């Protein structure tokens, strides 16, 4: 807004522009580098802690990844984490299967069918969903869902199903808002072209917009999955934390985040038991990075398509 005071000065660094260009850029770059450095530092820290299970305590990585025998407090301890890994995969995948159809439908509704109602009612509602702390989801799951499942489907109520449902509810806003963004990002041209060919709104949404928005939706799904894998508290409260691979939906089970949060504080640093928990955390981080990579590549595919 203000007039550059020394605009006409030649042969010198024009301080005005320097301040507004380099300073701003430097600041932003600085923060960026700081954050990237922090990320690397955390990853490195986790790697050192997580790898000592194998390097210091000489637990075999194969045992860690593929054994179901978990008895860290036995005289001859066993550190097989497969039950927890399988639990995490089952709960997250199921949550995704439950959530995705709802998310995509809601995104369609918000972005295409009723943008007005969507903007005024649904969008804010979804945003509130994001802000609810996980412990609230957990308590609702514990006091409503668990007894409901116990009464309707038998079993203890604490179950794979309860965990997946709570998680589905938690990742619903993530997937929905990213999917809605994907729909909104589509050029109106597609809609006009489709209507002009005599397609109905539903045909347009289903046959043109949905496929076109798919890469964006997939990004949302992958990020939802990443969130599902990392969520600890709410899931832990409703899955029962029974150390076994569930045989059916109403069976209780356990996952990586639950065992980490339950045992981390109670075990002493440097003991094999504690180290194994760090290895699980490292595994979670690696899974999370993998998902981010996946999300990025699907995102890139979308960009190159345009």
């Amino acid at each position, binding site marked *: 807004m203000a007039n550059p005071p020394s605009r006409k000065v030649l042969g010198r660094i024009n301080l005005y522009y320097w301040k507004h260009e380099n300073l701003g850029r430097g600041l932003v770059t600085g923060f960026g580098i700081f954050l990237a450095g922090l*990320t690397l530092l*955390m990853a490195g*820290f*986790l790697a050192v802690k997580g790898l000592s299970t194998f390097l210091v305590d000489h637990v075999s990585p194969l045992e860690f990844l593929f054994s179901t025998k*978990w*008895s*860290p*407090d*036995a005289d001859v301890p066993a550190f097989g984490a497969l039950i927890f890994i399988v639990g995490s995969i089952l709960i997250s995948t199921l949550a995704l299967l439950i959530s995705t159809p709802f998310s995509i439908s809601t995104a369609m509704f918000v972005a295409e069918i009723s943008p007005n109602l969507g903007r005024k009612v649904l969008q804010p509602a979804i945003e509130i969903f994001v802000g609810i702390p996980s412990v609230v989801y957990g308590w609702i799951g*514990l006091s409503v869902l*668990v007894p409901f499942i*116990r009464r309707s489907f038998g079993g*203890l109520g*604490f179950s794979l199903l309860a965990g997946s449902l709570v998680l589905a509810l938690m990742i619903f806003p993530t997937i929905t808002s*990213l999917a809605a*963004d994907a729909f909104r*990002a589509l050029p109106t041209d597609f809609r006009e072209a489709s209507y002009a060919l005599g397609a109905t709104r539903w045909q347009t949404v289903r046959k043109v917009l949905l496929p076109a928005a798919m890469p*964006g939706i997939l*990004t949302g799904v992958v*990020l939802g999955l*990443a*969130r599902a894998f*990392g969520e*600890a508290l709410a899931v*832990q*409260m409703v899955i*029962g*934390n*029974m*150390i*076994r691979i569930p045989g059916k939906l109403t069976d209780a089970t356990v996952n990586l*985040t*639950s*065992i*980490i*949060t*339950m*045992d*981390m*504080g*109670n*075990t*002493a*640093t*440097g*003991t094999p*038991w*504690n180290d194994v*928990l*760090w290895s699980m*955390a490292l595994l*979670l*981080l690696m899974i*999370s*990075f993998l*998902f*981010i990579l996946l*999300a*990025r590549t699907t*995102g890139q595919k979308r960009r190159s398509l345009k």
Partner: protein
Amino acid sequence: MNLRKITALASIVILSLAMVLTGCQAAPSATSAPTATTAPTTAPTSTTAPTPTASVTTDPGTTAAPTATAAPTATTAPTKAPTPKPTATPVPLSGTLISAGSTALQPLAQQAATEFMALHSLVSVTVNGGGSGSGLSQVNSGAIDIGNSDVYASEKLPADAADTLVDHKVCVVGFATVLNPGVTGVTSLTQAQLISIFTGVTTNWNAVGGPDLAIVIINRPASSGTRFTYDKYALNGAVEATGIALTEDSSGTVRSTVASTPGAISYLAFSYLDATVTAIGFNGIAPTADNVKNGTYKIWSFEHMYTKGTPSTLEQAFLNYMVSTTFAPQIIALKYIPISQMTVLTH
């Protein structure tokens, strides 16, 4: 569009970072223990807080508190009892104490800290949770001054590390077997019955005099101090069968889960007992503080505060306060048992 995606990605990265952060216990922020600024290593404590307390903490077996037998007296005692007033000390206590660890002990330690700071205006005492294992690791590494634990340090730390820590037993906590109120007709279980239940042999309440109802075991995590104590004294160290029990992270969730799950059995510290669950006896003895004190009820343990080596003046003063007669009523109010009231100190 891109911006939103970048923010989403960033938030995921931050999320995973946060995950990492929460997993990592307070880094050695206060490494060099800011011990008492007061000077020499004389023994100012002996002047301030005399008799029974100190002897109990050092050696429970031999010098078994002579005063303690008449249980309720302590509550009425404080009139004459010597309190650790700073009057006698030549230099007022000052400095910072950081304690962390056991969540079971946390409310009690917090209460003591508040009162202790009211007595000594130059002292600041911080009490954190984090779990017994974390408390022990941190006091061992020097990150904190006092590590609170539900179990002996040797149960958590490697032997060489445990040897460098000094144990101060600060109170006794009793544990009760609890049932869902729907399990009627069972008022006490024997050790043999409990072992049979927790190892998955007995699976129906009708086998132990209850209704025809499946037994649902609710455990604390394997690393929990409560579970350790219960396994040791109620189950005589029997190995619980895995994969048949639900696990709840905290005593609070254990209580609500037992209350809402038909056929549920679990165990809770006396401080967590309320009307929503049924506390039952062990080998025919009711789970009361009096039965713990007189040695008939066996499921109890000490709560420990560990220091790295000999406690500093300030640490010793705080530890003394924890076991002082002044503080005893608070211990009782929070449903722990003062060590001074125990007639037995071994199981």
